[in-house]
């Protein structure tokens, strides 16, 4: 995996067009977006003019001037190249997306009759139109299923070839234009006009066309512009100092000093870093609707995580049969297994599995037993079987107790069966249930013919390794809050087992929203993910709201990121990517500024050599000639841009080791390293130049 990532940075298919783009980006309008590089381009043009003048009029050290001018332009081109490479990676992705957007025909429905269709081009659809999509059709635009169920291939956007179910109502009603219906048919109400669909937005995002500078990037740009101004003052005043000393310094050398001093390294790579950050998310199958959201992800203080699917495996599993006094485990297991045979829910299946593994109870054939399966309903909150005049039910403890009461009333009214509620047994069941709940499990009472047999312990299985992840988050300074519909007792037990910092039990959309507001009032940034329509307000309120791609249109609109894989665990990676983005900017800024120390020691002695030869003592690198010193500095300044392109695309690695340790590490690498590296680099270039006789 990492292999393919490294090769993709150096992919010729991206690098070669990027060279052409680097020249195209010399357009002043494009350059003006980046103040530092714009200034470099302006002074390069100035020196080119001076070179041409010298060529015509004669005079000056033409060979030396020519090399300076070439390297100045290369500095600009390398910056453009870095940006082009970053964009190129996005472009490749956009290209494959664009292919899915090929002209589609839509079956526009008039009225409710699904036979009354009119074939229109997909691009002519308006918001609110209703279309019919049948097996084999491409869904013409984003929309919401208003009738029917279909399996849909969403590989075009997710890269996942397994089809997904899309159905009206509920949380899986959103469909995306460009995806294909594989079976059945659906009626879809269009929610996005052509040109503003999800895929259109994706294309724009990955291409970087919609890229706007993020708040942090703006602040950094101000700092860089300020540094540039300081160096304008520092270099523009030198000629006058030289005049005082009775000397003269050529413009070319002043320009060389100026360009090497201003923060060209970070200036050149800044936009590439931003684009690459978004790109990393896209590779992760997460779409950020704005760069601002990615930055905010790095700042997140509180992470709201849904229990199910994120902290625990989606399904609860039976782990134990707890019979009441007078009933054997075997008996309880037998009844529970019978009640679950036809139950296709994961919980039901896990009961069958446990009964077999622990008590050797084999699966029985429902038909031969003449059994009749009673499915779970929201009213009864139980399921079970009826056979040979007896009935078994399993379900929530209170539901089962209620069921017995009702049955007892029914018996009193007529039939002769002996269903009597025994209060002490009910209390015993209640006690077992409480114990299970306290341990974080879900109790499931089993009753056969009105006789309580015991309780099945269903347990939430906490995902492997999740506790370590949370410890890691804690070291990053992020508080995790588990969101669950469970009662507080169960929630507390799972929270403790998973190692989250806090939990919100019996969560409703309202108290989720108020939790977010509370955290934000304390100045914290909150991230969460959600998929249902009722998550939309919370998603909109959160600073980073990741909507699941399987979710509803409302949820997708409310969030500022969409996870195409619909994997809520990704929030953690999203935070890391945000942090990486900020760190890379900071590291390269530090490196860029630290570099200046060596450049001064290269250029200042060379510059004043003619009239202050004493300053030769500052030539601590022992550079051979003044020309070579100046050229080496400017060549180093240009080459370091190219050398750092891979780092700016990959990003500085984030380590959850605490802010202090992280800072001292980065200061050591990029601060101290930034001071030392150019001393070595400039010296090496000097050796090469003088060996080749270039200066």
């Amino acid at each position, binding site marked *: 995996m990492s292999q393919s990532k490294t090769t993709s940075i150096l992919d010729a298919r991206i690098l070669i067009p990027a060279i052409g783009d680097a020249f195209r980006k010399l357009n002043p309008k494009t350059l003006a977006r980046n103040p530092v590089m714009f200034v470099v381009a302006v002074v390069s043009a100035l020196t080119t003019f001076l070179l041409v003048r010298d060529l015509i009029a004669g005079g000056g050290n033409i060979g030396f001037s020519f090399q300076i001018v070439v390297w100045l332009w290369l500095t600009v081109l390398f910056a453009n190249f870095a940006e082009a490479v970053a964009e190129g990676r996005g472009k490749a992705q956009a290209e494959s997306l664009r292919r899915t957007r090929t002209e589609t025909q839509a079956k526009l429905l008039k009225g409710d009759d699904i036979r009354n269709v009119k074939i229109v081009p997909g691009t002519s659809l308006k918001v609110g139109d209703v279309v019919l999509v049948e097996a084999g059709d491409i869904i013409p635009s984003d929309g919401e299923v208003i009738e029917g169920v279909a399996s849909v291939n969403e590989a075009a956007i997710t890269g996942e070839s397994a089809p997904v179910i899309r159905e009206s109502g509920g949380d899986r009603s959103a469909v995306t234009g460009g995806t294909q219906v594989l079976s059945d048919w659906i009626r879809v109400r269009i929610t996005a006009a052509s040109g503003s669909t999800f895929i259109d937005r994706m294309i724009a995002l990955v291409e970087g066309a919609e890229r706007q500078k993020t*708040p*942090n990037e*703006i*602040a950094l740009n*101000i*700092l860089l*512009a*300020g540094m540039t*101004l*300081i*160096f304008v*003052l*520092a*270099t*523009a*005043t030198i000629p*006058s*100092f*030289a*005049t*005082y*000393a009775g000397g003269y310094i050529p413009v070319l050398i002043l320009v060389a000093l100026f360009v090497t*001093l201003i923060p060209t390294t970070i200036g050149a790579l800044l936009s590439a870093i931003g684009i690459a950050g978004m790109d990393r998310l896209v590779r992760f199958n997460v779409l950020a609707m704005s760069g601002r959201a990615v930055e905010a992800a*790095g700042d997140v*203080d509180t992470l709201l995580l849904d229990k199910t699917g994120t902290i625990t495996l989606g399904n609860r599993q039976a782990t134990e049969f707890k019979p009441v006094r007078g009933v054997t485990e075997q008996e309880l297991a037998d009844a529970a297994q019978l009640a679950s045979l036809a139950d296709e829910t994961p919980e039901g299946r896990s009961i069958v599995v446990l009964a077999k593994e622990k008590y050797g109870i084999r699966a029985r054939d429902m038909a031969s037993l003449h059994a009749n399966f009673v499915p779970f309903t929201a009213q009864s909150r139980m399921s079970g079987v009826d056979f040979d005049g007896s009935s078994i039910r399993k379900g929530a403890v209170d539901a089962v107790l209620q069921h017995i009461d009702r049955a007892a009333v029914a018996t009193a009214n007529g039939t002769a069966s002996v269903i009597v509620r025994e209060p002490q047994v009910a209390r015993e069941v209640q006690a077992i249930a409480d114990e299970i709940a306290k341990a974080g499990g879900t109790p499931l009472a089993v009753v056969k013919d009105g006789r309580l047999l015991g309780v099945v312990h269903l347990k939430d299985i906490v995902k492997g390794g999740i506790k370590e992840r949370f410890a890691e988050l804690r*070291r*990053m*300074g992020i508080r995790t809050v588990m969101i669950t519909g469970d009662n507080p007792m169960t929630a507390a037990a799972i929270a403790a087992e998973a190692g989250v910092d806090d939990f919100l039990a019996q969560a409703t959309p309202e108290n989720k929203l108020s939790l977010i507001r509370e955290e934000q009032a304390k*100045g*914290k940034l909150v991230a969460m993910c959600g998929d249902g329509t009722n998550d939309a307000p919370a998603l909109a309120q959160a600073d980073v709201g990741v909507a699941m791609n399987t979710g509803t249109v409302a949820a997708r609109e409310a969030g500022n990121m969409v996870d195409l894989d619909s994997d809520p665990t990704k929030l953690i990676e999203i935070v890391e990517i*945000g*942090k*990486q983005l*900020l*760190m890379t*900017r*900071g*590291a390269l*800024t530090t490196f860029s*500024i630290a570099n*200046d*120390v060596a450049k*001064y020691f290269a250029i*200042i002695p060379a510059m*004043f050599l003619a009239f*202050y030869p*004493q*300053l030769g*003592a*500052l030539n601590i690198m022992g550079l051979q000639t003044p020309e070579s010193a100046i050229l080496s500095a400017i060549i180093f300044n240009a080459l370091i841009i190219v050398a750092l392109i891979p780092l700016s695309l990959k990003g500085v690695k*984030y380590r959850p080791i*605490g*802010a*202090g340790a*992280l*800072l*001292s590490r980065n*200061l050591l690498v*990029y*601060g101290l390293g930034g001071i030392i590296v150019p001393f070595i680099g400039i010296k090496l270039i000097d050796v090469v130049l003088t060996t080749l006789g270039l200066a």
Partner: protein
Amino acid sequence: MTINGWIQILVFCGIVALLVKPLGGYMTRVFGGERTLLSWIFAPVERGLYALAGTSEREEQHWTTYAAALLFFNLAGFLLLYLLQRFQGALPFNPAGMTAVPPELAFNTAASFMTNTNWQNYGGESTMSYLVQMAGLTVQNFVSAATGIAIAIALIRGFSRASVKSIGNFWIDLTRVTLYILLPLCVVLTLVYVYLGVPQTLGAYVEATTLEGAQQTIALGPVASQIAIKMLGTNGGGFFNANAAHPFENPDAISNLIQMVSIFAIGAALTNVFGRMVGNERQGWAIFATMAVLFLAGVVVCYWAEAAGNPLVHALGLEGGNMEGKEVRFGISLSALFAVITTAASCGAVNAMHDSFTALGGLIPLINMQLGEIIVGGVGAGFYGILLFVVLAIFVAGLMVGRTPEYLGKKIEAKEVKMAVLAILCLPLAMLVLTAIAVVLPDAVASIANPGPHGFSEILYAYTSAAANNGSALGGLTGNTAWYNITLGIAILMGRFLVIIPALAVAGSLVAKKTVPASAGTFPTDGALFVGLLSGVILIVGGLTFFPVLAVGPIVEHLAMLLGQTF
């Protein structure tokens, strides 16, 4: 360098460090409007003043109002001081019969004293009447110091308050600083100076006959009271031309020690005020430590350079360090220490001739000022100056921990960075550009006393000192010309107000922000790492800005000296 010299330096450092906490505690209570030891005297006065001005303790100001009040107050002070000088001949308390100060000089002096710079293009004893000295200069010595402290407090409130609009009330801050801090300390210090032999009189100059029979006029005046505030308020404007080298201003080692301590006392204590106000004294100590590191580095280099002396002089058989331009009663260590203190803080008082320092010894005062005088700094000014550097340091370093940078829970964003950059930019603008113009103007160059790099340093030092609001002079330069009076006045005003306005804007922006609670993801700003980071950023930003100009000034002079060439 001698053991004795180092002991004197360490005694000074020890006293300053010991004063930080008690003085900081007292000042915090003053700014918070709490009852203090002196409330029984000053509280009624304070209330009376507010009633007279039609304001009250509860009235708070938005940063723009605060800035407007400050600018208005300073403008009024400037005009008053200008007019006093112009009309001193017609005004009382003028026993020496001084005539009107010329307009350019009056402008320069008014700008200089209103901004706590106290650059003096005149000799006090031969130019200013007692009235101008007392009602003009000394008054500005108090209020310019109080202004600086008020701004520092306003900026601290930007960090200590959250989600509000106001940063305090300028009039109240000004009144409290003057009444509770500057006045009482100055009364005590004046008495001490008088006890140590500093004159304090409104009588006329004394005529004396020397042993040789010559007639000599001995200048006197209300010296002790002016010296007290001159040092405590980091003003630095001497009563006499020779400043703290004059035996009437600074008679002996004890008075010298008291003066050095009083230069640093308030500025250093402000770090503690900061720590207390933001609820974590360690934050204040971290800034104090940064200042201490930079200060001690300067002292070591300066003392070493002066003690090492000039190899060319040694070659002539004269052993020892560089005593040229130094008072024998202070010696090399206390002269070097004083020079570093006076330029680290924006005091500008001198007890030795900086012009006569070795090139490297003179480099340190120059760098201290070019860094913006943030090592303790001028009262208040140094503190808000270093906080602006903190904003920059935090911004770059904060990114490296992967979060939007934050300091004390306040996010550092575009607005703060913009303002900090503006403030930091104004120093090179004033120092470098004006120097660059002056060194190519024949009239301006004519004012220098020495040719070559040393003369260059004289001009550079003048603009650096003016823009940094220091007020000390390298000497040698004849500053009382129309060109220098006006351009130095401009540099002074730029260096003061182009920093104050952005600093208050930062305060206004921060005060409205929420305070984010610290977590393991925010890097600690009260430890050694932060001290190292902040010192590094200050040195690198300052160093990169001024390296070329220092190279063609003191550095080349030093290298030339090693090669046997002097200027």
